[in-house]
């Protein structure tokens, strides 16, 4: 069991690095969706026995992260006629290196973090931290509004992984509530993107400063 989880977590790490290096929007969206689906399977693996709540939550999560959210993003991409390239503020290679550095940092930090109890896998905390950092890197180094949305998505994935430490304590209903928030947030943002694009014909978040005061 632990072996499966560990290998899944490693895949998540690799997806992180892939996203930092992805130069095409479609690839980025697909990678985020794939990461979401992988993570959604984890509670099923962790649960002592399969009860129907775990199954419901997992299937809802897979449906949202794997199908609906990528659909919305693709649609926004299409409707807003955004160019299909990711526009980075700093290059792909430097961000990947930063991401790798972040991963190393997370591994070092996680070794020193005082954790109560025994986590299912030694990799949970470092992968969680690394995913959060990846989300932040995407948020700060990418220009387009859609990539910002994906950044928040990855951030949430990182927090989700961290939540696995508390699997016994956090009821799935709370997890579902968070998921709903995320879904509504992305839904709203994609609509906003559409409208901003129609009004200003630009999706560059740097231009948003022109709205100040």
């Amino acid at each position, binding site marked *: 069991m632990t072996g499966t989880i560990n290998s899944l977590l490693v895949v998540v790490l690799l997806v992180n690095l892939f996203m930092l290096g992805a130069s095409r929007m479609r690839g980025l969206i697909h990678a985020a969706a794939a990461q979401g689906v992988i993570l959604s399977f984890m509670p099923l693996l962790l649960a002592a026995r399969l009860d129907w709540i775990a199954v419901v939550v997992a299937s809802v999560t897979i449906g949202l992260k794997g199908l609906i959210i990528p659909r919305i993003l693709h649609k926004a991409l299409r409707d807003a006629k955004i160019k299909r390239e990711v526009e980075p*503020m700093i290059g792909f290679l430097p961000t990947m290196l930063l991401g790798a550095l972040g991963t190393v*940092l997370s591994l070092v*930090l996680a070794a*020193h*973090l005082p954790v109560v109890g025994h986590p299912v896998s030694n990799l949970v905390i470092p992968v969680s*931290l690394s995913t*959060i*950092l990846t989300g*932040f*890197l995407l*948020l*700060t*180094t990418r*220009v387009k509004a859609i990539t*910002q949305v994906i950044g928040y998505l990855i951030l949430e994935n990182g927090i989700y992984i961290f939540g696995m430490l508390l699997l016994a304590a956090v009821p799935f209903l709370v997890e579902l509530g968070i998921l709903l928030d995320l879904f509504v947030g992305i839904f709203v943002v994609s609509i906003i993107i559409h409208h901003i694009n129609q009004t200003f014909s630009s999706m560059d*978040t*740097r231009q*948003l*400063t022109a709205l*100040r005061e």
Partner: protein
Amino acid sequence: MVMDLIVLATLLAAGSGVPGLLMSRRSSVGEWIAVGLIVTAALMGFGAIGYQLAFATAPAGLSEPWSLPWGRFAIGLNAIGMVFLTPILCIASLGAIYGLAYWPQAFHRRNGRKLRLCWGLLTAAMMMIVVARDAVLFLMAWEVMGLATFFLISTKDDDVGATDSGWIYLVAAHVSVLALMGMFALLRVATGSFALWSVLPTSSSSVLATGIFILGVLGFGLKAGFMPLHVWLPGAHANAPSHVSAFLSGVGLAMGVFGVVMVSAQWATPPIWWGGLLVVLGAGTSLGGIIFAMAQSDYKRLLAYSSVENIGIVLMGIGLAVVGRAVGQPLWILLGLGGALLHILNHSLFKPLLFFGAGNVLHATGTREIQMLGGIAHRMPRTAGLMAIGSAAICGLPPLNGFISEWMIYLGLFNCAVVPAGLRLTWLTLAAPALAVAGALALAAFVKLFGMTFLGLPRSLHAAEAHEAGILAIAPMWVLAFGCVVLGLAPVLVLGLLERAIARWDAAAFVQRPSLAAVEPLQKMSLILGGLAAALLLGVWLVYRIRPRMAVVNATWGCGYGAPTSRMQYSGGSFVRMLTDAYRAILWPRRSGANVIGFAPEAASASVEFPDTVLDRGLLPGLRMVGWLAGRARPLQSQAVGRYLLYVLVALVVLLVTAVW
């Protein structure tokens, strides 16, 4: 019963401006109601004081719990409170009456009602400060006083000078509240309760006691205007309506002094250096204040700086008393504290008198520049005469009241020269020459004020067309001038009150000598001063008798020239030129204009102004520097979302790293 009267009077005063709010802007009924309520409150307050003085055996007090989580509604009236309460009641009602003439609703529809509301609130807040026996209640009253004062200073809220002064005051008032909050918090640590003004069990040399004293001097000193802390004072008193200046200067500053007196009374034996610090601060304040006063060209600013000087004199007296208490010299306590408290009473008589007179001049001429006036004694004889009395009193000239209190402080300081050997406190006597220099400069300042304003020839149309003020403006001045003369001739009248106040401050002051009169032959003084007054009156009468025979109508100070003009007179600036030059290291004058060289030079003009050294040369440039530095940090706020997220990321990583290490 006494406390019930005080509470009722406070409520009446606080609400005195409210009926006016409900009336039309044009109606003048509201202002008469306000005056009626204030005067009623004052009479009730005087009744309470009189009853307490004449019949009561125990100190009056009242303590009720309230619904706030801290403190309680605890008030009490002791002799020190009475010394400070009397001027509050007196000037609040006289100033309100003066306001009927000076700031009538009919001419000030926009802000007359605001002024009267805040006047009542200020009166009530100051009454509460004096009687409060609970730190929370005290701070609330202190805050109300600060806010009411702010609104009073900026009564003319369309005048930039007034609003600027108001803001500076507000900042100073809040720094003061901050310091006092700290002080009361430390007091709470020391006593375990918010009850006020009891003698503390902790040693006076502990860090806690030092903290309480320093914070108290800072907080109360900002209100009283000790010299480096006086920055708000000149502008506020110059720009406020004149009766407000009179109230703030004559009574408001005394609230700060009240605080210092009460704070310093809290230890049985305070350290010597506390008293030394107060004496040095007092000497510096009085000298600095009067040097700046003398240089001013705005007569209300001059009066404001002169208030700083008088507070300095009071502070010297208090410092002397604290030293006396520290080393067990009851004589110093009697003379120092007695002189200080008497000077507070005196200052609350002559300073409002002078500000009322200044208000009449401002009302009649529309200018605050001494340079524009001259010769208005002929057109405003009553104001001129009353101002002359006030000026003589504030300079400490006998037989008026200022002389008595300054004389007591002189006596106390001279006594330091004959201390028992081994105390090493002879240096305190050096404050006496400082006081003397301040007195001499005060004389110069007020000769300038009175001479340049009222005597000579008019320097402008403003002065030439001045008119005398109405009876409502003159009558309060008569009362105050009468007070100056009476307290000058018969200081024994307040002797009992002063003795009680000194006994409340330190009961040990009377161990060697039974009374203040035994130290200071006040009765004999009264006789001598009475004789002096009689001689003075006789001299004036004689001059008036023989004048008709030698009367020649000519320009004042015409010096026999054929065609004297008003421009040939001394100007205010040239009159004190010698002195301002002597003190230019302190005054730091800003001169501009040509130097006139040689014979028959071309037309030239020159001017000199005296900005406040602390405020205009130290504080404001310093604050501008802080503003500039803060502006350097502005680029951090780029308004780019990505940048803010980057800050979050950096903060996160730093926090994680520091949490682990």
